[in-house]
């Protein structure tokens, strides 16, 4: 019974899966580009949590180095993505995916 309560690798992985699902649900259900972006960030963070958990329970630091790289790349990706959203908003004055269905404007 104590093995069930004690927080092990599986517990962290389940939290990671649930967080990933929340992010995916945000991407699928919401229609605002900014909130969709936040869902993407949640999914990236869920992957980070899984990597750190594996790194801890295997006593191997390579997972943490990977997470460090993911955080940095995510920061760069957020900057570029938000700049794209701003450029899109200037042209079309909307940030809703339902208004952005045409390929050519």
């Amino acid at each position: 019974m104590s093995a069930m309560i004690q927080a092990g690798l599986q517990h962290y992985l389940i939290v990671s899966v649930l967080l990933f699902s929340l992010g995916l649900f945000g991407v699928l259900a919401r229609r605002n580009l900014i909130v969709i972006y936040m869902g993407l960030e949640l999914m990236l963070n869920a992957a980070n949590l899984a990597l750190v958990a594996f790194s801890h329970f295997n006593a191997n630091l390579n997972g943490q180095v990977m997470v460090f790289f993911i955080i940095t790349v995510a920061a760069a990706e957020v900057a570029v993505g938000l700049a794209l959203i701003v450029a899109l908003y200037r042209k079309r004055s909307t940030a809703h995916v339902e208004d952005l269905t045409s390929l050519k404007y």
Partner: protein
Amino acid sequence: MPQLTDLLFYGFAALTLLFGFLCVANPLSRNPVTSAMFLVLTIISMAGLFILLHAFFLAAVQVLVYAGAVMVLFLFVIMLLDLKEEERRKLRKFTVGLGAVAVAAIAGILIKATLSAVPLAAGKVVEGNTKPLGVALFTQYLLPFEILSILLLVAMVGVILLSKKELK
């Protein structure tokens, strides 16, 4: 008898999932600013989980980079856009329902795979790992680290170019 770290794990895990839910599907408010604030709280709770996993440096980086830099960027962009528009729109019940079903299926598969995996034998724990992490970053992973700096430079130039008023 549960240990203090286990109780902290359940507390931080519950907070992370609760704030994450409120970030993407807040039943009371569909304002993007509210979502951004709950995303900050999610990330800070996740930094707590990182500390429980002895990843102290990553917890600090998580708070500094995500809760600091990235969220400021999000809020700046939200301020540039039309906020009232989001609250006026209705979510489509059909889309939300189908999305929930699909996501629940994926989560079910992943959780089943996690639970059916053979648990690890308890390995030794890496303690106080900021120094070994720095050593690994600057020896074994030196090339990716430097490429990352170029990536950040490219992203910066790209953002400046994209947000100029008109391209010549």
